[in-house]
């Protein structure tokens, strides 16, 4: 009895402390969230403003009047539909190539034994740390010799060869978690390795493949430096290049610049919202190296 009587004020104080701590966390998170959201609201609000209202102090957060025509005017003053089509071609071709070739390599590294496997894997993985700028000039010269400049090929073909060490790593981690019995049973039934890969492992790895697909989309939708060196004709530009060119022309028309930026941002945001779960799991897996 005495112990309970003693414990009670202590427990109450802990509970009070917890409530206070939670309130403090909620307060800090809210302040931070306002800071994180402010640039987005500023982007959206500027995109919908009448140009005369851009230069007001204090600023108008909710535009009055709302000028939807900024979007139509910005998008028709440069060939944005062409940019979008070019970008989509690059993104889709990469999805196919990366998903296929990275999963093949990951299967080899995760589920087959052969001499030198771990050494080869470590060499491939270490190239994650290699800045692309180091190989940028020779790669440019290779594609120039091939006559592929100003085509989407330099932005697609290299990614059909393994898709990049990051994706191989991510898929390998996932494939290793699948039980070995699955493959052994199929092997006894006379199934070849390609069959096991295609019919057993891939269907079980949908969530990891989805994570890779989202990363590939964002990587190539957002890419700037590689398209910048390979593409130059206006009709070949990607959205990122197009937006950069648009910025040079309309450098002070903030309502147009923000409207065009909103259009480039929206697909990434949509992909994120539809696939948030896979996405966060995928990132979490990258930090989980043994």
């Amino acid at each position, binding site marked *: 009895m005495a112990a309970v009587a003693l414990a009670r004020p202590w427990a109450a104080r802990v509970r009070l402390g917890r409530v206070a701590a939670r309130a403090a*966390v*909620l307060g*800090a998170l809210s302040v*931070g*969230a306002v800071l*994180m959201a402010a*640039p*987005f609201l*500023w982007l959206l609000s*500027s995109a919908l403003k009448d140009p005369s209202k851009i*230069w007001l*102090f*204090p*600023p108008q957060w909710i535009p009055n009047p709302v000028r939807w025509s900024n979007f139509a005017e910005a998008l028709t003053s440069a060939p944005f539909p062409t940019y979008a089509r070019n970008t989509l071609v690059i993104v889709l071709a990469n999805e196919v190539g990366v998903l296929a*070739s*990275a999963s*093949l*390599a990951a299967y*080899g590294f995760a589920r*087959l*034994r*052969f*001499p030198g496997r771990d050494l*080869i894997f470590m060499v*491939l993985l270490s190239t994650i*740390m*290699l*800045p692309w*700028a*180091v*190989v*940028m*000039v*020779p790669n*440019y*010269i290779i594609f120039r010799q091939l006559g592929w400049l100003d085509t989407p090929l330099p932005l697609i073909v290299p990614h*059909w*060869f*393994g*898709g990049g060490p990051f994706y191989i790593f991510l898929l390998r981690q996932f494939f290793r978690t699948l039980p070995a019995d699955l493959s052994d049973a199929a092997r006894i039934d006379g199934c070849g390795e390609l069959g096991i*890969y295609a019919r057993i492992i891939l269907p079980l790895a949908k969530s990891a493949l989805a994570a890779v697909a989202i990363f590939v989309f*964002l990587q190539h939708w*957002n890419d*700037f430096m590689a398209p910048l060196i390979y593409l130059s004709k206006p009709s070949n530009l990607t959205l*990122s290049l197009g937006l*950069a060119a648009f910025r040079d022309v309309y450098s002070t028309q903030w309502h147009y*610049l*923000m409207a*065009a*930026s909103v259009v*480039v941002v929206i697909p990434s*945001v949509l*992909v994120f919202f539809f696939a948030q779960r896979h996405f*966060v799991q995928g*990132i*979490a*897996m*990258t*930090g989980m190296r*043994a």
Partner: protein
Amino acid sequence: MSARPGSLARREAVAGYLFIAPAVLGFLLWTAGPMLASIWLATTDWDLIRAPRPVGLANVQHLLEDDLFWTALVATAYYTVVHVPLALALAFAIALLLNVHVRAIGFFRTVYYLPSIVPAVANAVLWVWIFNSEFGLLNLGLETLGLPKVAWLQDPSWAMPALILMSLWSLGATMVIYLAGLQGVPQHLYEAAAIDGAGALPRFWHVTVPMLSPIIFFNLVMQIIGSFQVFTAGYIMTRGGPQNATLFYVLYLFQNAFQYFKMGYASAMAWVLFLIVLGFSLLVFRYVGRLVHYEESR
């Protein structure tokens, strides 16, 4: 009977090599081969029009005498030294907050993550407007607080702090990796520490930090390497200016290759970059890596 397992193992090995063949070929074609080629390129003078002319180590010698090379190196070092600790600490702090189960935590996680998916060019254009010296969001905020306005991107001493400030908006990936690590710390460690009378701060230092040290290390390495590669912000927002204050290393490399068409010189720069990154990585693995605590059971 002894030949059977051997031939099975051989068949598995052949299959293994075939499965990884595209990736290995890709590595040779677009990474290892180009790196070797760039050693040769670095010893030539080549403008892509006339034939490459061998010049030996002249490019490296010019590099050491090139003021802009040193400017670029210092600018990149400045960015790295300020950005990396801030990014690591801020992302860690946010992850700690996001790991508390308060109301609407899913909403908060989304809000903090979302900036990271904004495409780099759109991000750059947006922040040029935020940094606008007359009517940008940041200066309007300063004006509201009664503080003087700052010519963020026009003032050589403010341009780099501005780009670092902007970089702290997009810490999503680092944050999520921390958060996943925090969720992986076994609850019983905290409980054991609490029973031993450890308060919140000792629990943080003696449980959270050691348990997360492999992840802190991973984030540190990725942040350093990312900092050496900053390009888009400098290219779009400041063109390396004002007065070369934001002339990042990769930006200067790009200018040499694709604006001045000095392929040999740019290749020499690329190799110097490779050696710097390699040297830094070795240093970090050697001196920071041994502070990392790994669980025995792994």
